[in-house]
């Protein structure tokens, strides 16, 4: 790729300034696991690559009471998977990161890159939507927070403006007694992307009834699909086997999945039902 200029700023200010100047001729590269494939297949042809590799401050993992986990955009998926702090505060999220691609991919790919790419068949997005995570983005115009529920907008499309860099992921703490799970269903090789990913977060009232249930499916549509009906059906109820079955059925009936080499729309509807049910059973049983 001899005609592409590589720019390696050393401060965030420098990076966002360059981004503002070059506009649509520039692409941001972090781990490169997705971008390089796109370049090689001539799906994109930027004149400048803006590498974030030399930015000093985006590789932290912190926890702040009241805010939750703060994960720098350049943290690799592998580091996020293994970080004791994430394993302690959000064990399901850590294991979700551990389901991305394979270890070689996870060692290079970054948390920020994963979200910014917005590949529909990726594991973390639906889990992060279910956890009500937020992204921080920076530009010459300043910094803003974007809830992930509004972040994903289409195939490879996000709410990020062309001049913005995703700098941080914020994952609020779960309410005490909440449980979460991510189920990755693959239809081909074990290393495949998900045919259906199913994230569930359940918060119960002290009396054992459901305060809040969030079910979000990944890889079934352009963006993570949250099943609003599931939340509504579960609220204030005890999740009996029958109710679980009814919710799962409603998720399946309400879904309008896509078809690809991993499964047809019909098949995905069946799997959404099965995975929704299994995810609910998991969070009830607490394992």
């Amino acid at each position, binding site marked *: *790729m*001899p005609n592409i200029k590589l720019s390696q700023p050393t401060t965030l200010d420098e990076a966002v300034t360059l981004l503002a100047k070059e506009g649509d001729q520039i692409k941001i590269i972090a781990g490169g696991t997705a971008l390089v494939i796109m370049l090689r297949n001539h799906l994109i042809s930027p004149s400048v690559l803006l590498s974030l590799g030399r930015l000093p401050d985006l590789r932290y993992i912190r926890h702040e009471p009241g805010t939750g986990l703060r994960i720098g955009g350049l943290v690799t998926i592998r580091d996020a998977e293994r970080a004791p702090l994430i394993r302690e505060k959000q064990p399901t999220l850590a294991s979700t990161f551990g389901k991305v691609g*394979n270890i070689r991919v996870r060692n290079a790919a970054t948390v920020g890159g994963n979200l910014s790419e917005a590949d529909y068949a990726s594991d973390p997005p639906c889990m992060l939507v279910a956890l009500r995570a937020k992204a921080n983005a920076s530009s010459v115009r300043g910094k803003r927070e974007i809830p992930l529920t509004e972040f994903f907008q289409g195939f490879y499309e996000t709410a990020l403006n062309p001049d913005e860099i995703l700098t941080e992921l914020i994952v609020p703490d779960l309410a005490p007694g909440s449980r979460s799970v991510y189920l990755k*269903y693959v*239809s*081909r*090789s*074990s*290393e*495949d*992307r998900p045919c259906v990913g199913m994230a569930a977060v359940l918060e119960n009232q002290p009396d054992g009834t459901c305060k809040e249930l969030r079910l979000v499916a990944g890889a079934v549509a352009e963006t993570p699909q949250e099943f609003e009906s599931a939340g509504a059906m579960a609220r204030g109820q005890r999740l009996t086997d029958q109710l679980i079955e009814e919710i799962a059925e409603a998720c399946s009936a309400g879904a309008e999945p896509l078809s690809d*080499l991993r*499964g*047809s729309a019909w*098949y995905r509807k*069946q*799997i959404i039902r*099965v995975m929704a049910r299994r995810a609910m059973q998991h969070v009830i049983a607490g394992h």
Partner: protein
Amino acid sequence: MAVGQSISMIDSQQRVTGGIDYTLNIELPRMLYGRILRSPRAHARVLKVDASKAERLSGVAAVLTRDDLIGDHIDPYFGLIIQDQTPVALDKVRFVGDPVAAVAAVDDETAAEALDLIDVEYEELPAVFDAEEALKPGAVLLHESLRRIIPGRPDVTARSQAGTNIVHLFKQRKGDISQGFRESDHIFDNTFSSPPVNHAALEPHVAVAQVSERQITVWTCSQNPYVVQRQLAGIFKIPMVDVRVIVFTLGGGFGGKLNCKLEPVVAMLAKKTGQPVKITARRNEVFLLGVQHECKVRLKTGVKKDGTLVAVEAYCHYNSGAYGDTTPNLITRGYAAAGPYRVPHLLMDSYGVYTNTAPSAAFRGYGITQVVWAHESQMDIIADALKMDPLEIRLKNILQKGDSFSTGEPMPEMHYNELLESAAEKVGWNNGPIVVREGNKIRAKGIGVIVKGMATPTTSTASIKLNADGSLNVLTSSVEMGQGLKTALAQIAASEAGLPVSRVRVSEPDTSFTPFDLMTAASRATFCMGTAIRKGVQQVRDQLLEAAASMLEAAKEDLILNDGRVMVRGVQGKSVSYSDIVRWTKTNTLLGHGIFVSGSGPDGSPVVMDFETGQGYGSAEWHPAVVTCEVVVDTETGSVKVTRLHGELYVGKVINPRLSELQVEGAMLFALGQVLFEELSSDTNGGITNPNLSDYMLPSFEDVPSQLSVHLLEPHGVTDVHGIGETSLPPVRPAIGNAICRAIGVRILDLPITPEKVLRALENQRKI
């Protein structure tokens, strides 16, 4: 003795430290980089190829077009049996991906840029993608002109005719098929299909060519350098001596690197530019250079009430794609359509058919895979219908020594009873129920059996050189491609020569220096080249013994070779080293030549099949194997996990037990993805839509069954050597298919058995 020992691969250190010189790594001074312009149309007349703009691009050295294929200096047609291919399209393109032109430039990017500047005009023609459609009257023809068939193939000349899309037709007629069905109590009629799949070797196809005044030198990752040499000599109309083909260790072959692939194009570019040129196939191109024959097998089988097979009528349609390549040989493997069973009445037609799809190639399992999927699936269908145990019905019909095969030849001892019983026992066949339900998961066992032939007639030759220091060179054109061949051949040579393996070097092929070998394929190299090497070493041994007898004043019969010395049996201290012998002979080197030619079957009869009846002899050796497995099917998702996989083979004398087991394991894992998810998909224009390793998935290590085992049956004192590379692959497919059917009661006839197909079948079953 080195033979029979589980020594490590002799190149294992280099393998794990990046020390192997793959063709991919070759860089030559002034080397140019080539790229191929490929057709976007499945079938079209090429009206115009204008490369002038591309030629003017800075950095472009030459553009190869059909204009370069015209003239007395060149014969553009090549092909293993039917010469139906040209380096770039002459008048037509026949599949999406057919080469139209090629560029050599100073770097890869410039070459790629130049491709966009080549102006090609097409006149679209109707295309046909399905083998049976292509046989119908009025189907569009891929190759209109008279076929050019190499001499010595009257069978192909008789059947491969212009005016049809038939590449070749192989027939078998045995007994009386009508009588057979009349005598049958039950008749089963099913059609089984296998999709096109790719070899997906880790190393893509790579070729480098350099043309000096007289000689064309090609470095290529080829499984048969001598075929490449002959074809290039034909194209350039020069003597074979002026074509030198050099092959290094391959990063996997699996049949995908046989015959000419990139070599004609790269050699023509090198000739045109006067500079070395390298072409590395991009991953998507690897899928265009050869795929396994898509195949449909209709199998109609008549049986007695007690499960005895009486009659088999089979129609095999192998999709050859746009060119013939190995198809005329491969489709004769229809001879295994009735399996390794006694079948008195047989009618079999096996077609190889041209279609506008990516060309087919040899593929591990070589045409047997597709018919094994059929006969072993149907064997379980029959067993189910007759309420027989799958093991029992196979034992009842399996070929015993002296039984007549589909070719009519009497079979040698194949040890099938032992193989079947042992393989069944390894997965606990008779130990507890064959199907176990655990919630929404069902666990069940399955079995598959194969008889695999070998390429016959066949020739391997080797030169042996004992050096002045007593070390030994083995000059061979057999190819190391990860299977451990160099190690096995070194063990054979070392054993025969009375030397430690560390004193033996096995060469890589170089047609200017290493003698002829037919190919490294068809599970033949260890047997054929191993035999040639043994014979060559024996000539050296004779010279050693002759000289040592004089030197030690002893009778030749009393001498033994051990660890680089000739000793007198029973006399301590009376011995002489090989280096002393070589010095004594004043030759500085002792030479031996080994030639192995096999054109005869196990009983010595010539391997020839009558082309009207398919009766005669089919192979110099027959390779038997049984695969058993256990699967767990999730009835809610349809997903299948293979939990146990066992291969049981008779391979005669085992040269290296551990490497043999690993090769069998490899073959079984290779099959795993082909059973469960591997499949080339294509759009309505015939273009492959998943030519990359993300959309075309391969199994990962996490898919490996938790219990993976191999047992090689090696009767005491056995001396014959059998090939091992392919035999265990084909039966994996029906073994898993049969286990899935036993688990859920529905049978998938079309590979791969995806979770979606399983779930749909379960849904349909629930509705009934």
